[in-house]
């Protein structure tokens, strides 16, 4: 088991899925996953889980090649399809799939059948400690809380010393603090083991919190790959933009280019609202899509002066809605913007529906989307 340092997972997969509807879905990707956490990001239905299923062997691709280092797990041209139990790839499902009739300890020991009693007990003990769930060893999944179940599912997968770890949205439903704590434990574990971890999520926050590398998937294909900044801050596709938390998406027509200023002016949705956005490959008169994050918009109760920001728009608050720890304001500037502000700001500025306000938008907060 030792000696396999820095082994990379490579996968070239084509898999067609037919459903009852006439539309069929094709996953066609080629990815490389090296040591450490790589995030597989995309809206639901983008093909993330199908990709993981193919790597684990639960689903058989129509074509392609999957390998860990030089060890081939699947190769359609050579007719190789290593059965799931022999792949040594750990997979934590979104539903966790803990065995309900076994205790936490028995769940964790499940994959260690090949070891002797003594060794098995040691390994189970060590991993339960590493994930801080040693007190729950005699409990069954039905008696354990969500976050702790997720820890046990991780421990069960990792105790087998896998060569690759696949995580399908394993931390959904947890608050940020618990998520961070589990991820810290996972990172700590992986510093010693150094295996490729493929982490599926559709949550923008998780990408920011975890990401070393991101692979963005859409409609069964890779649309971009790189650092979280590269992939998410310049969204090239509309759907990805929505998934990435760009609450404001507008169709716009290009009015003119100002090369010297590095900007172009666009008119939003055929309204009177004109803003400056970064220069893009779009001729005057052509249609583009503009994405703006609700958290990137400033809101003022008086017309602001002396700003570097180029876009100041006058408008009226349509509604204010409390969403957890923030307030979502909808502001009509002849197009409707969604703006995120803190409850404190709402109080301090005495914001109410119908109030006249100014929105301030930096040029570089406006993203061009294909």
């Amino acid at each position, binding site marked *: 088991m030792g000696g396999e340092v820095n082994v990379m997972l490579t996968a070239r997969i084509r898999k067609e899925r037919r459903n009852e509807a006439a539309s069929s879905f094709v996953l066609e990707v080629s990815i490389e996953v090296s040591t450490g956490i790589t995030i597989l990001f995309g809206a639901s239905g983008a093909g993330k889980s199908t990709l993981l299923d193919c790597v684990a062997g639960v689903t058989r691709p129509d074509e392609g090649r999957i390998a860990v280092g030089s060890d081939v797990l699947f190769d359609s041209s050579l007719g190789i399809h290593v059965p*799931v139990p022999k792949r040594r790839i750990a997979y934590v499902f979104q539903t966790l799939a803990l*065995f*309900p009739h076994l205790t936490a300890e028995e769940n964790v020991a*499940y994959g260690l059948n090949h070891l002797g009693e003594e060794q098995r007990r040691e390994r189970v003990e060590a991993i339960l400690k590493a994930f801080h769930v040693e007190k729950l060893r005699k409990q069954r999944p039905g008696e354990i809380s969500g976050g702790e179940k997720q820890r046990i599912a991780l421990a069960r997968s990792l105790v*087998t010393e896998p060569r690759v770890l696949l995580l399908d949205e394993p931390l959904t439903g947890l608050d940020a603090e618990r998520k961070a704590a589990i991820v810290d434990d996972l990172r700590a574990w992986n510093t010693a083991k150094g295996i490729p971890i493929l982490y599926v999520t559709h949550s923008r926050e998780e990408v920011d919190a975890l990401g070393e590398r991101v692979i963005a998937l859409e409609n069964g294909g890779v649309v971009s790959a790189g650092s979280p900044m590269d992939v998410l801050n310049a969204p090239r596709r509309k759907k990805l933009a929505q998934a990435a938390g760009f609450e404001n998406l507008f169709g716009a027509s290009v009015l003119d280019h100002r090369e010297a200023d590095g900007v172009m002016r666009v008119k939003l949705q055929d309204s009177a609202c004109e803003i400056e956005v970064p220069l893009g490959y779009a001729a005057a008169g052509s249609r583009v899509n503009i994405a703006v994050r609700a958290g990137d918009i400033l809101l003022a109760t008086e017309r602001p002066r002396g700003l570097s920001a180029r876009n100041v728009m006058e408008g009226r608050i349509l509604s204010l809605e409390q969403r957890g720890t923030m307030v979502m304001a909808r502001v009509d500037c002849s197009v409707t913007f969604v703006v995120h502000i803190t409850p404190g700001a709402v109080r301090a500025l005495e914001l109410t529906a119908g109030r006249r306000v100014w929105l301030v938008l930096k040029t570089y907060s406006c993203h061009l989307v294909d």
Partner: protein
Amino acid sequence: MEALWLSMKLASCVAAILLLIGMPVAYWLAYSRWRGKFLLESLVALPLVLPPTVLGFYALVAMGPRGPLGKLWIALFGHGLAFTFTGLILASVLYSFPFAVQPLIVSFEGVDRKLLDASAVLGAGSWRTFWRVILPLSLPGVITAAVLSFAHTLGEFGVVLMVGGDLAGVTRTVSIDIYDRVQSLQYAEANGMALVLLAISFCVLSIVYAVNRRVWTPWAAK
């Protein structure tokens, strides 16, 4: 009393045999992706709709000295199958087959597929997955299968009459015995036996329903 004892012995043997045969059949029917599997499904369900006399008739023909099964038996053991306890067991196994297989299929299919995937990913082959995951989680179905095939065999009449006849101590089961007594106007004795069967049937069904409400399964979600 001899008849009751014989019925109990027959029902226990049949239930045990059916569990052994029923599990692989149910496993295959639950998990196979073969398109023609509905054919086997109808075959398994056939005894549910066939009149017992029809089933018994064919069983008798097959077991008779000129039937294929009868011939084989004579060649192997030197005596025929019809009107013997063994013949009765064979016919009853056929007759109660769906009562064992159907609950097993339902409970095997009820096991979350993700648990089977999880088991495979953790390195377990299908055999180990069956014993460690599918079987324990299907326990109510297994108990139901055993109890139903026991109860159904206990109460059978037509098949026994066809294949077994009415030989005291060999093939005279409790339902045949009740029939005989009614024919000879021994109503009190018939009533005694009938009450015993009624009580057993009620107990047995209570067990089935209790098990399926998961009264005793400790890991059921609260």
